[in-house]
């Protein structure tokens, strides 16, 4: 009996692995469950098992908002770029990083939320993030005017080389770590340098 059930779960692992491999797009738990005639719970458990098995391999299984796909290991980033002929991307500006942080940690958010938290108009940062595909419109708010709601896209995880939104650094303020102050001696708009050295 136990032998049979472990066989079955092994078959399930193989099947899910195959589905992720052949799929062009990310797969939802319900997509996989309906193909395999299984339940989303069982599929999710099996996916987590697969994810940990893949942790030591060159392929990762990433999860974004309940959808899964196979991606290359972030440590192989340089080689993948070389093979694919991709130019190194320009680093995000401090304004874009702040806007992205709000979207990542507070999603879904509206343009007004972004401006309220940053204290400045963030439209250009938002459109930069949208054009880079790191964030996307994910719906409309019920508030007056039904403003657009923004959230992270699966590319966000891939850009930062993490497996899921749960892998984002915790948003508690470190107690003994004074936040960065602008580097006043350097030229304007070189905030990144300051932060990276901390």
């Amino acid at each position, binding site marked *: 009996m136990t032998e049979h059930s472990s066989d079955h779960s092994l078959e399930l692992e193989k099947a899910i692995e195959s589905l992720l491999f052949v799929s*062009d797009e990310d797969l939802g738990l319900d997509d996989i469950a309906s193909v395999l005639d299984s339940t989303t719970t069982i599929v999710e458990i099996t996916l987590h098992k697969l994810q940990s098995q893949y942790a030591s391999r060159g392929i*990762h299984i*990433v999860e974004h908002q309940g959808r899964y*796909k*196979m*991606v*290359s*290991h*972030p*440590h*192989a*980033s*340089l080689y*993948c*770029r070389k093979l*694919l002929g991709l130019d190194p991307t320009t*680093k*995000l500006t*401090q*304004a874009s*990083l*702040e806007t*992205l*942080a*709000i979207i*990542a*940690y507070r999603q879904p958010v509206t343009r007004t939320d972004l401006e*309220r*938290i*940053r*204290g*400045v*108009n963030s439209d250009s940062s938002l459109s930069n993030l949208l054009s880079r595909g790191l964030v996307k419109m994910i719906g409309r708010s019920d508030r007056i005017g039904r403003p657009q709601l923004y959230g992270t896209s699966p590319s966000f*995880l*891939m*850009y*930062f*080389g*993490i497996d899921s939104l749960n892998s*984002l*650094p915790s*948003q508690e*303020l*470190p107690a003994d770590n*004074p*936040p*960065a*102050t*602008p580097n*006043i*001696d350097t030229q*304007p*708009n070189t*905030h*990144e340098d300051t*932060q*990276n050295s*901390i």
Partner: protein
Amino acid sequence: MTGWRTGSANSALSGFNVSLDQFEGPFDLLLHLIEKDGMDITSVSVLAVTDQYVQAVDLLSASYSDATSEFISLAAILLLLKSRALLPSTDLDDEEDEDDVDDLAARLREYQIIRTMANELAHMELNNGSSFIRIAEPNLGNYEAVSKAGSIEELTQALKTMTARLNSPPPTITVPAPRFNLQARIETLREQIALNNDLQFAALADDCTSTLELVYTFLAVLHLASNGDVRLKQTKGFGPIQIESVAN
């Protein structure tokens, strides 16, 4: 009042060449002023740095920043809040929730968290690599594959028909190759198809006397098909290709 214009030790920005550009926004500047004195963000500390903030904006707004108006706007709000705090008799129950000092402190704490997380993201951007998906095949549109691939027998049969055509005696007289005009070929083909609604491509190919003519005929058929003038039909793999005019 810290007297930072004179460059005393606890001045905010003295002795440095600064501009508003170096701050991401009014909250960034306000937060900087509070943090440099090692204060926590409270209603008290926000009001405590009001004078420094107003002075900094006053001095720095000479250097242009996209957000200059937002810096000045916060200065006005801070001055209003401070004046209320100094004059307790002022009615604090105004319906101006936005201008509540506790609310401002809360927003500032939220901004502080976000700024820290932005730094984390910058760190990850620099140190983590990126992941990539498998490169998918280019999407060629809605060309459906032949649902049932032909059998080996059908393939050999098609090959036989083809070689039989090749083996037929070549025309003995070679005339100078006519100059073909694709547009003209399309027109004649269109007429031909209008007359005969059940034409096979093989029949058209048989009528061709040279490779060049065959090529033009083939191109003309493709052109008509892409225009939607004719429909191409192949009922089985390697089978004959039927050309049907699209009924108007």
